[in-house]
């Protein structure tokens, strides 16, 4: 597909290998709308990789993986962050805006329809009963994700104490999240800094 475009010259980019392509904003929009529509079911990451690295060469594999790590660490929904990163690398700020829009718009329309249906159906007692069951499945997804993530954390007392303290403060004592994280994040970063293994090797 990329070969048929032949002579079109990519914009000079000092960081990127020369074979990378620069998409038009329209191409970006279409690609991310496609990802937004087909990623119902949560498979947006492989779709994004296919569109931006394999089918079109908008960024290198290495850049994509770095963006994926970044999207997870930073605040915001991971797929939306990754879309922003890809759009930003490909076409700067307008590209980022268009990629996020394409990613969110289809799901936004579906959720609006569901919100409308909820308003119409809430008069029936069965609605709340079924949704309570679905909420249980949703909480189960959160618990399973949390349990899997917890196994990847560092195994030390500090990590356990911070996670437990945040849970008790916000979940049990209902303290507002903002003051809790303003204390917990610096404490946790400091603990990670002190126990950093790479620093011993001089990195």
């Amino acid at each position, binding site marked *: 597909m990329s070969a048929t475009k032949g002579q079109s010259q990519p914009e000079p980019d000092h960081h990127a290998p020369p074979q990378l392509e620069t998409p038009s904003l329209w191409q970006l929009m279409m690609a991310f709308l496609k990802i937004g529509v087909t990623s119902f079911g949560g498979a947006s990451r492989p779709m994004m990789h296919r569109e931006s690295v394999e089918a079109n060469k908008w960024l290198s594999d290495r850049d994509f993986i770095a963006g994926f790590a970044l999207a997870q660490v930073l605040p915001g929904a991971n797929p939306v962050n990754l879309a922003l990163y890809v759009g930003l690398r490909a076409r700067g700020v307008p590209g980022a805006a268009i990629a996020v829009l394409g990613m969110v718009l289809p799901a936004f329309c579906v959720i609006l329809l569901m919100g409308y249906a909820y308003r119409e159906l809430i008069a029936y007692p069965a609605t709340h009963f079924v949704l309570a069951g679905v909420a249980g499945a949703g909480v189960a997804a959160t618990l399973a994700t949390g349990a899997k993530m917890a196994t990847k954390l560092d195994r030390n007392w500090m990590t356990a104490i911070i*996670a437990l303290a945040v849970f008790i403060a916000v979940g049990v004592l209902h303290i507002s999240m903002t003051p809790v994280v303003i204390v917990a994040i610096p404490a946790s970063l400091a603990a990670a800094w002190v126990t950093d293994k790479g620093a011993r090797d001089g990195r």
Partner: protein
Amino acid sequence: MDDNRLLGLILVFAPLSILSFGGGQAIIADMQHQTVDVWGWLSANQFSDLFAISRAAPGPSTLIAALIGYQIAGIWGSIIATLAIYIPSSIVVYYATSWWQNHPDSRLKRSFERGLGPVAIGLLFAGALAIIESGPITLLMLVNLALCTAILYFTKFSPYKLVGTVALVFLGLNLVGF
């Protein structure tokens, strides 16, 4: 009146956007606290319903903001809430991306990668507890929760198929008089 609600949506969701480490799950507890207890826009039951819908819907879990916005202030509410939940975090991502690319592998970067984890996990479990508390706590609900958690933890069963299955099972239970 409606303008006040739109402004309120921004005041609730924009700060949560910056704090949404790991996505929407980390901010569910505070979202519930704000919309139910502080602003009184929704009942705990309604919040639990909207959470269920957002989990059954496609797209990122942060889109629960659109659903809450629609419920309390119509179409404009959903648009404003969605912008408020995505723009602040996107600005952070924008600046962090530039910084990240200029600092290949540093101690600060590794500390961020490892240090945010415990906070995100604590918030995530707090969010799970908030939803459990806001719904009916009956034997049926607890069995449902335990079964679903076990299935999702030990098997590769898709969460979307599980949500669909649970909806059908509960509809069936309702028909036989539960």
